[in-house]
Each structure stands twice: as structure tokens, then as C-alpha cells.
């Protein structure tokens, strides 16, 4: 295999991983601060993508579409937190799983009702279309490169938010000691709504960004949601640092596995069998990775609490 192809796949893996991080960051934050497991996070991803597609269709502006995605998902997130989610903080995980599973049903069918079953399309804006030349003769789509950059900026922003701002101090206090933040006179329910809305907004933004390179349709959120769960479980639930490392690990494993495993199997099998065995195994690879990590470290790479 050529080095150029391999380098492209590494970039693809990086891009997938970074987008997973944007998705997973909200999920892990919500778990870390509120102890909530939220299956409906994928619905917020979908809502962001649909909002972006609708606004881009109406105005033609990609930037406006992204703003719409972020704000629509954050608004829906805040609303859902106030109406439903806050009743679940003191419930066991089973209730949380079921209630948020119910939310998926409502959001998915609601979106289908509003937008129909046909996929929408969100186009990459012209100034980000086409390939760029990278050192070493690699031609790589500018848009995907932009996704990596935007994702890294979001990661940086999150780290600064958590380590430098007042809100970040409150979030960290909430992760460590819930009674403490009540004692400090912080309005917990407001803090929780804000944290949930931030996570939702990030999911919506990720939905819009990814929506431009795939179709925007009902059910697009769940595969990403499950990958994001794999990420936060590998990273250790509640750890942003763990989520970043794990998301890149998962992105690279998934992308490179799909290319390298069939090639590897061809060394000792005949071609068609190698392709099918290789692709079967690579489709399971990240789950094998996750199971492996949990077997060795039952609370993930950077996790403390079960």
C-alpha cells in the first residue's frame, strides 16, 4: 500500500475521531457533572444537522447554518433538560436509559413528521470545496481538513472553559463534590441546564459539520451516538481528556482497520475471502477495542467512578 493512501487514511481517522470528540465531550460532561447517561444525545446531533440543512436551504449561508445548528440544538437541549432530564438525575441508570430511549423515539419520529423520510442535503460551501495539496504530494479535501481544525479549536476552547472560567470551576466542583457546590451557593439547577445546553449545542454543531459530508436524515444520530459512547467508555466516563484521547484512538482504529485488515489477511488468504473476513473483523474492531479496555481497566483509561 502506498504511503500516500495510508496518510490519507490517517487524516480520515483523525477527522472522524475529532468529530467524535465534539459529540462525546457533551456526553461525558453531562455524565461527569450530573451522573446522567443520555441516549438522546444522538437526537441533538440530528437536530443540529436538520436545522443547518433548513437554514442553508433558505439563506444559502453555511455560517448561518452552523449558527442555527448550534443554537437550535442548545435550545432543544435546555428545554429537554428543564422538562424531562432534571427529573432523572436522582434516578438509577435503568430509568435514565429508558427515558432517554423514549426521547429518541419522540425526536426521531417528530423530525420525520416535520421533514419527511427523504434525506436532505447540506452542501459544502464553495470556499471550502475541493482538495488542497499537502507536503508529500497528498491531495486532501479542504473541508475535512477544516473539520479537524475546527474540532481541535473546540477541544482547546473546552479545556480553557473548564480550566480558566468561573463556569469551569463550578463544573469541576460539581464533578468532585455535589454538596460542595450547593454549599458555595451556586444555583445547581441553572448550572445543570447550562452544562446540558453546552453539550447539546456541541452535538448539534457536530451534526451540521458532519451533515455536509453525508446525507441529513432521521436516524443519523444513533450510529454516532454509539461511537461516542464507545469513546467515553474507553476514555473513562466524565473525563474530557480521556474522551479526546479515546476519540482519536477510535477514529484511527476504525478507519485504518478497514484498510489494513483486508490487506493483512490477503497475505495468507485468497483475495475475496480476505476482503470479507477483513471487513467483518474491522467492523467489529472498535467494539473489540472497547471490550478489551474495559476488561483490563473496568472504569476506562481515565475513569474514576462507575
Amino acid at each position, binding site marked *: 500500500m502506498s504511503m500516500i493512501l495510508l496518510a490519507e487514511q490517517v487524516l480520515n481517522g483523525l477527522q472522524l475521531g475529532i468529530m467524535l470528540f465534539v459529540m462525546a465531550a457533551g456526553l461525558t460532561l453531562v455524565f461527569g457533572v450530573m451522573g446522567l447517561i443520555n441516549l438522546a444525545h444522538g437526537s441533538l446531533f440530528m437536530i443540529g444537522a436538520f436545522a443547518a440543512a433548513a437554514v442553508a436551504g433558505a439563506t444559502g449561508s453555511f455560517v448561518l447554518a452552523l449558527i442555527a445548528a448550534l443554537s437550535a440544538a442548545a435550545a432543544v437541549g435546555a428545554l429537554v433538560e428543564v422538562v424531562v432530564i432534571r427529573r432523572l438525575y436522582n434516578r438509577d441508570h435503568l*430509568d435514565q436509559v429508558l427515558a432517554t430511549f423514549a426521547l429518541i*423515539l*419522540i425526536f426521531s419520529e417528530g423530525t420525520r413528521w416535520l421533514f419527511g423520510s427523504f434525506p436532505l442535503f447540506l452542501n459544502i460551501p464553495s470556499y471550502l470545496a475541493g482538495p488542497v495539496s499537502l507536503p508529500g504530494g497528498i491531495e486532501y479535501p479542504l473541508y475535512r481538513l477544516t473539520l479537524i481544525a475546527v474540532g481541535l479549536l473546540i477541544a482547546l476552547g473546552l479545556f480553557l472553559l473548564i480550566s480558566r472560567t468561573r463556569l469551569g470551576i463550578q463544573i469541576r466542583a460539581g464533578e468532585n463534590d455535589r454538596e460542595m457546590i450547593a454549599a458555595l451557593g451556586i444555583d445547581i439547577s441553572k448550572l445543570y441546564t447550562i452544562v446540558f445546553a453546552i453539550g447539546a449545542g456541541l452535538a448539534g454543531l457536530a451534526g451540521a459539520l458532519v451533515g455536509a459530508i453525508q446525507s441529513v436524515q432521521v436516524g443519523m444520530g444513533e450510529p454516532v451516538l*454509539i461511537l461516542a459512547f464507545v469513546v467515553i467508555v474507553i476514555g473513562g466516563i466524565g473525563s474530557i481528556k480521556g474522551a479526546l484521547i479515546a476519540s482519536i484512538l477510535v477514529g484511527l482504529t476504525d478507519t485504518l482497520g478497514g484498510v489494513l485488515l483486508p490487506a493483512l489477511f490477503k497475505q495468507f488468504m485468497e483475495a475475496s475471502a480476505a476482503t*470479507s473476513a477483513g471487513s467483518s473483523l474491522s467492523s467489529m474492531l472498535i467494539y473489540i477495542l472497547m471490550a478489551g479496555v474495559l476488561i483490563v481497566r*473496568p472504569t476506562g483509561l481515565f475513569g474514576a467512578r462507575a
Partner: protein
Amino acid sequence: MTRESLFNIVMMSLLILFPLWAWIADEPFMITLATKAVILALAGVGLNIALGLGGLVSLGHAAFFGIGGYAMGILASHAQSYSPILESPFLIEGTKSMPVIWLVAIISSGLAALAIGVLSLRTTGVYFIMITLAFGQMLFFFSISWPAYGGEDGLPIYVRNGFPGLNTLDPIQFYGICFAILAVVLFFCARLAKSPFGLALNAARQTAERVETVGISPYRLRLAAFTISGMITGLAGALFADLNRFVSPTMFSWQTSGEIMVFVILGGVARLFGPVVGAALFILLEHLLGGLSDYWHIYLGLLLLLIVLFARGGVIGTFAGKGANHD
């Protein structure tokens, strides 16, 4: 007699009377609906052993449902194409016999549950939910990408498998088979809940520390419960495949895991008949609401949300009050 056992008797009578009515009124579709409800109930009864008695929130029971389904699919597809599954080192032929298929489904899903349990039960809480989900997804993607048995498109079986002495193509007879299996399994579960194993498992859910202190390993109890649970859900998978004469990766999907869990919760966790009521209600809603609106999942979602938030005992809990436990 408690209100719950009265409720159970009414439910059991309905499961006999409704299909009989449908048979006499010549409504085969209604019989098929009842069959579907009974089979999904069986899947839920399996999960309820892990979830209700053992407190193990498994979001991966679709794995066992799918393995049961594919056990049927693989055996029957080889039988219908007259090609053996394995020729060397020894010959394994396909079969169209239900009892053999059930046995294979139970054994293979049991072995899978044992293996998944050994690895997953090292974790607790959210991690357990997620690792079971991951194993389910592993099998889902495997079934999609493995081309030998239909891959993404699934695998049709043209004629329903046979049972000695019965015509399984007759809806009421096939219903009878499924109902009998459900009844036998429910009877087993009722015994299990009161047996020493049920007592210890139930205590381990409430206070694992206590169970250890009397010299019993909670891990081994949970592993046994998870395995039995997987076997029952696997058997349901084989029956479900026979009902549809079709198996596909959808059986392995995580939505399937979620739905099996929904049956248990709708009816009432840890209630013997919880999954039965839940699955029947689910099918009823699907039929009624599905007729009214294409978007009936919205209403299902709202109902589920209301039950989780406000009626935690499920339907049985609402009707029969707080359970008198297993005594």
C-alpha cells in the same frame, strides 16, 4: 390470592381466549399478532431474569435474540439448499426440525451469554450497560459484513420449520407451540424466583456485600443468571425468526435491545408477567396507533416517558400495587 396473581390469571386467560376467538372468527392476522406478542414476551422474560432479579441492566440482549434467530436461519437455509454446514472433520447437516433448532439456539446463545458475561460482569453501573451494548454491536456489524448468510440483506427461509405431529403453517398451531413454550418458561421462572438461586440472586441485587459475607460469590450468581437469561432470549429469537421466516441483522440491532427492555419496563420490572403485559401492550399499541398515524413511535415514546417518570412499577405496578415480593 394477591391482586398480582389475579392479574396474571386474567392475562393468561386472555392469551388463550383471544387467539381462540381469532381462530373461530377466521382472523389469521390477529393470531399472528398474538404470536408475535408471545414471542417478544418470551424475549422479555429472558431479560427480566438478568434485569429484574439480578439488577443487571443489559443493553445487549439483542445479541442473544439474534444468535437464536441466526441459529434457525443457518440450520434451515442449509436444509433447504441440501448443503451440509460442515463436511470435515465430521458431517453437520442443516435441519428443519424445530426442537433441534431450539436446542441449538439455546445452547449457542447460552454459550455466548456465558462468554459475554464472564467479561462484562467485571464492570458495574454504566460501564456494564455500555459493554453489553458493545458486544451487541459487535455481533450486529459482524452479521452485516459477513456475506455467507445474506449479510445486510438478511436470509429468507421459504417454509416454516416443522414440529412432529403438528402443522406449523397453520397459524393457530404455531401459536399453540409458542404459547406452550412461554407457559413452560414462565413456570420455570416462577420456581426460579423462589428457589435458593433466586433468593441469593435477589439478595445480591440489593446488597452484594451481605451475600459475600454468607459465603456466596455474587459474580457467579450473576453469571449464571446472565447465562440463563441469554438462553431464554435466544430461544425467543429462534421462534421470532420462524414467525417471520426471515432473519436479518436487525435482530442484532441495539434498538432491538432497547425494545426488549421496553417490554419489561412497560409491564413492570421483576414481575413474573411484566414482560408479557409489556409485549402485549407494545403490539397492541403498534397495531392501534400504527393504524392511526405513521408516526406512532411518538406516542409510544411519550407513554414510555410517562411510565418511567410517574409510574415506576409499570402496568402491573399500577394495577396490583407494590409487589408482595417473591413470597
